[in-house]
């Protein structure tokens, strides 16, 4: 019984009655332990680094494959600007013919994304909100993921923010930030009249806020923009958007019943819900952009 037998031979011997485990306790103590297969040990860094040629070949092959697929798809696309393209159908004609009448917006893009397809834009705003919430979950500092060393580094950074002289950045920020934010507000408020709208204006405002925060430090930003205002503006904007568009969809998306006044196309107070929706989207995007910056630098808004 000393020599090793395969499982099948053991089984055969047991069936034939030649082999019986007489001393079970002794057998259990003495039997050799099964070796666990350690996958992690097999995939060591040396093993991975040893296969450089394979990886090079695979990366080039996969890139060439994808480039080929994309180029073949691009080859099959209809010609740019051809009037017989499938995109030039009755939908576009309808938008161009009765767009001003139905939405009241002279900017057709705004009329499309905030009136005909407002639900898509709501989804996009929600995606931004979810993204910034994920960053808050990962990077916001609280007692559990925050060490004393980081606390000290943060205090040093605050000290530099207050006492260091950075004249070019500070004077530039002082002069440029109000102008940038003003331009962003203009782009948002004229979203239904001229190119632009909530997303572009919001990012411009966010860039202005980032410039101001990088020039004067986050302590100064916190005098008027705290985490509380951030959440209030984001959630308030989303809820206002949701309420406006719910009303619109509830009445059959035709604004039946109490009709929202369209105003005269071309005036600033016109186009029904498009102006308030633009303001909502712009506020959400501006808060999101500044929120990303603040969470990436200090882990706090």
């Amino acid at each position, binding site marked *: 019984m000393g020599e090793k037998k395969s499982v099948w031979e053991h089984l055969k011997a047991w069936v034939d009655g030649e082999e019986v485990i007489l001393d079970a306790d002794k057998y259990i103590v003495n039997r050799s332990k099964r070796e666990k297969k350690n996958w992690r040990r097999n995939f060591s860094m040396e093993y991975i680094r040893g296969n450089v040629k394979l990886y090079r070949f695979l990366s080039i092959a996969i890139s060439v494959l994808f480039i080929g697929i994309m180029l073949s798809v691009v080859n099959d696309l209809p010609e740019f600007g051809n009037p017989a393209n499938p995109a030039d159908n009755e939908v576009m004609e309808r938008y161009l013919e009765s767009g001003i009448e139905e939405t009241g917006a002279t900017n057709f893009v705004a009329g499309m994304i905030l009136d005909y397809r407002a639900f898509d834009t709501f989804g996009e705003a929600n995606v931004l909100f979810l993204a910034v919430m994920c960053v808050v979950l990962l990077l916001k500092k609280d007692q559990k993921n925050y060490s004393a060393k980081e606390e000290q580094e943060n205090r040093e950074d605050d000290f530099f923010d207050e006492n260091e002289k950075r004249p070019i950045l500070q004077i530039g920020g002082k002069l440029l930030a109000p102008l940038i934010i003003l331009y962003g507000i203009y782009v948002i408020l004229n979203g239904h009249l001229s190119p632009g709208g909530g997303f572009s204006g919001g*990012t411009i405002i966010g860039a202005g806020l980032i410039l101001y925060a990088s020039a004067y430090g986050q302590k100064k930003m916190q005098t008027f923009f705290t985490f509380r205002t951030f959440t209030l503006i984001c959630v308030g904007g989303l809820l206002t958007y949701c309420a406006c568009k719910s009303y619109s969809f509830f009445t059959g998306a035709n604004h039946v019943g109490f009709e929202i006044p369209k105003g005269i196309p071309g005036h600033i107070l016109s186009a029904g819900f498009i102006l308030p929706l633009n303001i909502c989207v712009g506020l959400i995007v501006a808060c999101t952009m500044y929120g990303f910056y603040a969470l990436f630098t200090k882990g706090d808004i």
Partner: protein
Amino acid sequence: MSTGIQIILLVFLIVCALAVSFTKNLFIAVIVFMGYSSIMAVIWLLLESPDLAITEAAVGAGVDSVLFFLTLKKVHYLKGTREG
């Protein structure tokens, strides 16, 4: 005239895109990517979609690169910053 400018811009676009992927220094890659976004904004303007141009200039050249720089600072890649 306009097509000539467009061809020059498109060549710059391709050169920038290749340069981003071939530079070893991540800092330079981010700056070249900013240039790529600016060129893309001009191309959007020439293709008669100014709202996309505004967004591309603000997001691609502005906020995006700031976020990239912050990430590089977070992983202690930039020289001159703490533990850089």
